[in-house]
């Protein structure tokens, strides 16, 4: 599903953010990507959804070399990947419904189909009662769930979440991971970046650990 071959990333005039990364992620896997701040977690995720380009190496997404995708065709890749951002990246002046519907609207889906899909997705993340609320008027935990709903509504093959529990308390964090597990059960490949070891210990999944841009651990389904 996702393969990294000797991937390097160096930002302009700075140290290497990623160094010689080799990894393979199978379809339907649930992975925690961990490491200290600045370890390169976000950079690795950005390479997957092509927000950044690798300085060296190849990345295959569903057998397609992502470095060869031209800018004009990038939307095709992005429609296969759902992304949950650390800062949510929601449109605060729009309703919950409007935010969740965006990935379907940009594809030109029909209004009735969009409505039906938004309702079922909001039910999945437990936000049906907030549908007509302005996003700025709901809590941080609820905003996080809106972001998850938006990421999964388009039936992506891959879901990427960058510190999805970073701003939440333990109870809410567990709730969010449980929602993500439910989504993963539908066959969506899941890569969750987090530095919360307690959370990782609670959910026995594959763990990939980065340290100063290097892959230092790739361990399957055990507590660290």
């Amino acid at each position: 599903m996702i393969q990294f071959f000797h991937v390097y990333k160096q930002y302009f005039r700075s140290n290497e953010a990623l160094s010689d990364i080799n990894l393979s992620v199978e379809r339907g896997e649930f992975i925690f990507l961990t490491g200290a701040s600045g370890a390169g977690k976000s950079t690795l995720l950005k390479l997957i959804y092509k927000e950044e380009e690798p300085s060296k190496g190849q990345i295959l997404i569903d057998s397609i070399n992502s470095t060869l995708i031209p800018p004009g065709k990038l939307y095709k890749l992005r429609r296969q990947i759902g992304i949950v951002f650390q800062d949510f990246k929601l449109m605060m002046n729009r309703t919950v419904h409007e935010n969740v519907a965006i990935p379907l609207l940009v594809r030109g889906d029909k209004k009735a189909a969009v409505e039906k899909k938004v309702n079922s997705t909001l039910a999945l993340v437990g936000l049906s009662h907030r549908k007509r609320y302005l996003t700025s008027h709901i809590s941080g935990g609820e905003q996080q769930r809106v972001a998850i709903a938006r990421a999964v509504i388009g039936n992506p093959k891959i879901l990427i979440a960058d510190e999805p529990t970073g701003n939440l308390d333990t109870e809410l964090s567990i709730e969010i991971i449980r929602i993500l597990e439910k989504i993963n059960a539908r066959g969506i490949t899941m890569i969750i970046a987090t530095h919360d070891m307690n959370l990782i210990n609670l959910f026995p999944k594959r763990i990939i650990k980065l340290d100063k841009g290097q892959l230092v651990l790739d361990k399957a389904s055990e507590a660290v």
Partner: protein
Amino acid sequence: MKFMARAVQQALNNILRNKTVNFLCLGIIAFTLLVPGIFNYISFNLDSYISKLSENIEAIFYLREGDNSADIEKMLQRIQGNLLVKEVGFTSKDRAQMKFTQEFPELQYILAEFSDSPFPASINVKFRTDARNVVQIESFIRDIEKSSIIESVQLNLDWARKIAMIKKFASFAGFFLSAILLIVSIFIIFNVVKINIFYRRDEINILRLVGATDWYIKTPFLLEGLILGFLGGLLAGGLLLVTIRVFPVYAKFIFNIVKQLIDFRQLPLRIFWEMVITGSAIGLFSSFISLRRFIKTTPG
């Protein structure tokens, strides 16, 4: 269809969201279109006036004594065959004398001194009503003048030439001012779209990340420029009409001088639509340039 409806809705929302900036922009576009519009209007009216005057452009070719009628007939055919010529007529020596007698009966005694008509035969030519052909008319006359049967030619094009000069000056001044103001206009719309892109940069980024195509993102901004330009053109057309109507009331002195040259009663539809189309084109072009400059399609 759905895509366009959404893009138009989005563009209108953008315009209404930044009311102050957009209405200011609209005013400036209208003003920048109004100035060339005024010059275009003056030029249009002068053109009509020259056309009206040109209906009377007439040349009289006086013929040499003793020419035979075969040569005259040939010359008449040659003149008649030219596309610039509307009407051609021949006045014989006797006919010229008769006309003189009819027009100036009190001077008949002068003619008593002559045994034969003292007036030369002539060919009278009326030209078509297209003042842009003044140069061609002159060249045609010079050509005919070379003929051995022609003694001299009488033509008065001075007034048409002077009006044409004024029109040329008005067109040049209009073009020069228009060029400057249109550049200003493009710069303003460019910056308005830039501000709107900046205002919506997070939203644009989100749309890109959820898989929106470039056109899905860019179309509302393009339409925004188009709508602003279109409305600016409409406003400029309205302002020009008001200017035309108000001018005779508030500038009576100038009005009395120019009222023969300029028709203050109506605004030709052609000029109105030219302003609207120019405004729309400027709006579309400026936003296109702004988008190329400020919306990145490449990652990173």
